[in-house]
């Protein structure tokens, strides 16, 4: 009798646990995959997430979140790209075995369509980048603004150009 009662109690507990998981935990888990905040650290088992943000005649803009330990290939359309780092990332030319270049948050790089590249995280958080595919190609070479050129200009109060 006691054995039957225990089995019955265990069975009830199992049902209760399944109901609890279904009602409370699983929906949260699903939400975590669909609408997780970009700042939240992601486990390495989490898949890469690419989200198309906008597209027009000139750009195709997407956002890519690569969890720690994952490498995200970019530039598969053979178009020139502009990569904007929203977190600390490493950017490497995929076709060459070069050392990945660490980029701080806010860094912007032009990536030629002939050089498929990869993005990975270089910090304790996932790598978050905005990638703009340029729909037009220009033969003119992209030049990074460097010294001795004056690349930075102050914004001054009250001045109108």
């Amino acid at each position, binding site marked *: 009798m006691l054995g039957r009662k225990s089995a019955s109690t265990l069975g009830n507990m199992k049902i209760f646990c399944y109901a609890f998981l279904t009602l409370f935990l699983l929906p949260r888990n699903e939400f975590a995959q669909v609408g997780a905040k970009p700042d939240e650290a992601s486990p390495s088992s989490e898949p890469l997430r690419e989200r198309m943000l906008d597209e*027009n005649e000139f750009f195709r803009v997407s956002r890519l979140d690569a969890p720690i330990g994952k490498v995200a290939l970019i530039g598969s359309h053979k178009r020139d790209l*502009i990569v904007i780092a929203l977190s600390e990332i490493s950017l490497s030319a995929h076709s060459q075995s070069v050392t990945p270049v660490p980029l701080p948050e806010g860094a912007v790089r032009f990536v030629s369509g002939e050089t498929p590249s990869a993005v990975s995280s270089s910090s304790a958080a996932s790598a978050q980048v905005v990638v*703009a595919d340029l729909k037009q190609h220009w033969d003119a070479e992209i030049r990074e*603004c460097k010294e001795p050129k004056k690349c930075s200009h102050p914004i001054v*109060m009250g001045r109108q150009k």
Partner: protein
Amino acid sequence: MQRTEKMQPSDCDGPAEIGETTLLFTNGFVMAYRHSLQSGGTLSSSYYSSASRDHLLFIALSDVHASFDGEDEQLKAGQVYTSDATQVEVSAGQTEARWIVVRVNSPKHPN
């Protein structure tokens, strides 16, 4: 008794810098800029040209309030906005505003 006054622009010896614009790279057709603006500041930029048109990709690195040809947008950090606006006004709130602008220039009359 110590008296404090709110500093006005006229009290300064020189023009007060409230931010910085940095050209990152260009090939004459595509230009990327980084902007920063102190809290409370507003930057108005004109992208009007009689010969060409700029197509803008605006990436907020911090929360900013932006107006694209008078259309107000409250952008969160990491948010992206594309526009062909010729007048863009960005305001910093309680904290410094930082954003990136990528301009793609195309002629108005290709022929």
